[in-house]
């Protein structure tokens, strides 16, 4: 197992190197040049000054030169300073990722609490009205365009009904004058709509997955044996069958854990949540090279970590699986 993990990590390093080359080349081809965009329309700036600035920001280096400079620093853990904020990119990401993480984490918990029981119930009553409604609801969830759903929710609940705030994390005007409880409620109120979007658009997959799994388990021989022994239907389903459906579920959830830090680009932008995703989109439009590089490498690491965790937990939960 130890050997397996070490080998996987080594392979991951090679993959990351490949990803970083592709990313750097693409980013340097981008037209949005940070210096040009901030200097545009400023009559006091001379071309020499712009050139100096570009030199300073490393935009005059060729792609190869720039890449090797970047790699040499990145290996030591220095990803440079963000062009936009001027602070080290790592600190920027570290501070923003927790906002994205907690939102995504709570959304995932809600998702599991809703999707797994519904999927299991649908499977035990296959082809019943319940089963059909669960199927339809989950397929509808998968089919929802997230951005459209988000805007529609904003329109209904924030603009027409005015029950919930439109955007942001806190009420800017008076958040600081609230006591701790009120502050928490304030954040909670702001999170209802984005959370609804995140849960609704991703709940379908999990629901379908737990249903299919439960169906497979229910058709297994040991379930027939359990019934033949005369166990009650509840014991059969919730003790024998359910525990076995948990195996792939735990794997999937474990694997998606790192991804929670990534941030939801579109949802965060629409709801103006200052998370990693919104910052990433902003960086791409402005051409903040250090930030885009670090952000995308961070996402790549999360993906690799996710698959590794999924594979390892699979072996841990299911003793029949051997890693080689």
């Amino acid at each position, binding site marked *: 197992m130890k050997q397996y993990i070490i080998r996987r990590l080594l392979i991951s390093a090679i993959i990351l190197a490949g990803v970083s080359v592709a*990313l750097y080349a*693409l980013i340097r081809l981008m037209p949005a040049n940070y210096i040009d965009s901030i200097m545009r329309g400023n009559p006091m700036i001379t071309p020499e000054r712009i050139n100096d600035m570009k030199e300073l920001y490393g935009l005059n280096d060729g792609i190869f030169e720039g890449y090797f400079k970047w790699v040499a620093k990145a290996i030591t853990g220095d990803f440079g300073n963000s062009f936009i904020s001027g602070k080290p990119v790592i600190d920027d990401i570290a501070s923003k990722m927790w906002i994205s993480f907690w939102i995504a984490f709570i959304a995932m918990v809600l998702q599991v609490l809703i999707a797994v029981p519904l999927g299991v119930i649908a499977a035990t009553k296959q082809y019943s009205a319940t089963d059909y409604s669960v199927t339809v609801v989950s*397929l509808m969830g998968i089919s*929802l*365009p997230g951005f459209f759903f988000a*805007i529609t929710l904003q329109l209904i609940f924030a603009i027409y009904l005015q029950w919930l705030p439109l955007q942001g994390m806190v009420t800017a005007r008076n958040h600081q004058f609230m006591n701790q409880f009120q502050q928490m409620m304030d954040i909670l109120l702001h999170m209802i709509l984005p959370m609804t979007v995140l849960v609704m658009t991703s709940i379908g997959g999990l629901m379908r997955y737990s249903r299919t799994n439960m169906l497979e388990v229910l058709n297994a021989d040991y379930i027939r044996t359990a019934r033949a022994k005369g166990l009650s239907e509840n014991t059969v389903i919730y003790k024998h069958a359910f525990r076995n459906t948990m195996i792939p579920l735990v794997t999937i959830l474990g694997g998606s854990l790192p991804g929670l830090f990534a941030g939801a680009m579109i949802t965060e*932008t629409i709801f103006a949540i200052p998370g990693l995703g919104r910052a990433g989109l902003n960086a791409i439009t402005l051409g903040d090279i250090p930030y885009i590089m670090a952000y*995308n490498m961070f996402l*790549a690491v999360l*993906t690799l970590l996710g698959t590794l965790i999924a594979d390892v937990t699979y072996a841990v939960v299911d003793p029949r699986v051997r890693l080689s």
Partner: protein
Amino acid sequence: MNEKEKKVQEQEDLGAQALELNLEKVITPGQLVLKRFLRNKLSIIGIVILVSMFLFAFIGPFFTGYTAEEVFYDIAADEIAMYLRPSAIHWMGTDGNGMDIMTRLMHGGRISLTIGFVVVTVELLIGIILGGLAGYYGGFVDALIMRFVDIINSIPFLPVVLIIGAIVDELNIDKTKNIYILMLVLGLLGWTGIARMVRGQILSLREQEFMVATEATGLSISRRIFRHLIPNVIPQLIVIATLGLGGIILTEAALSFLGFGVRYPVPSWGNMINAVNEPFILKTYLFTWVPAGLLIFITVLAFNFVGDGLRDAFDPKMKR
């Protein structure tokens, strides 16, 4: 007719009857799948929606009498006829540029559906070839291809597509043509799932007896892979492709919504919703963006209904 002839005749009748009975009983696997598929109400609903959507998008424009990029002018008010409410002339009103929304929805549908099909085709081509090679040869070829799959897989999808979108913009390509680049990019980044599935299936299929037989009869390797192994994976491929179509329509819509996919004046369902970035449109002119969103939702839902129905129909383990 004497006794003997009668008997012969009777026997022939019996034989014919038996033959008919037999014919009734023999159902090809394809028919079985079709039967199971058609029994599923949701997949029928999906098919009906998809057929009407195709008619709407591909035949519809011939009947509206307008083109997608035609700007209407209000002579009485001496200004562009923008944000006209739905009326007999413009069934779904006009948008902020004075263009007929109904016509744009149809053309947008053409583009969304075409993008879906082209991207899925690209994905299938790359996925089947690379997955097939990796699965059949194993060893070094497999390791090489799978590492490549890992690299593509770890490239963050949305950021990279946005970056490429920005690059393509700079190239000053005709706005109608940059859709093709978009399709290619989506296809090149999206095939890994198919490759993995094909590889996994072929790894188990190649150990079976019929593959030993193909080797014994001396068939060429490409024939063995593409004639004998891939057809066995086709059911799963059909399901993945159908579900993938919906997913790509969603991706394209999201990209166009962010302003990176299909560009104005070419209409797409996604960039029609883009109009809501102006708050007053969001509130006042619902008819400019809600229909596009609903069309995306309904179309993707239909693809998912059909894909789900196909999966159930193909799966011999599913009891009915």
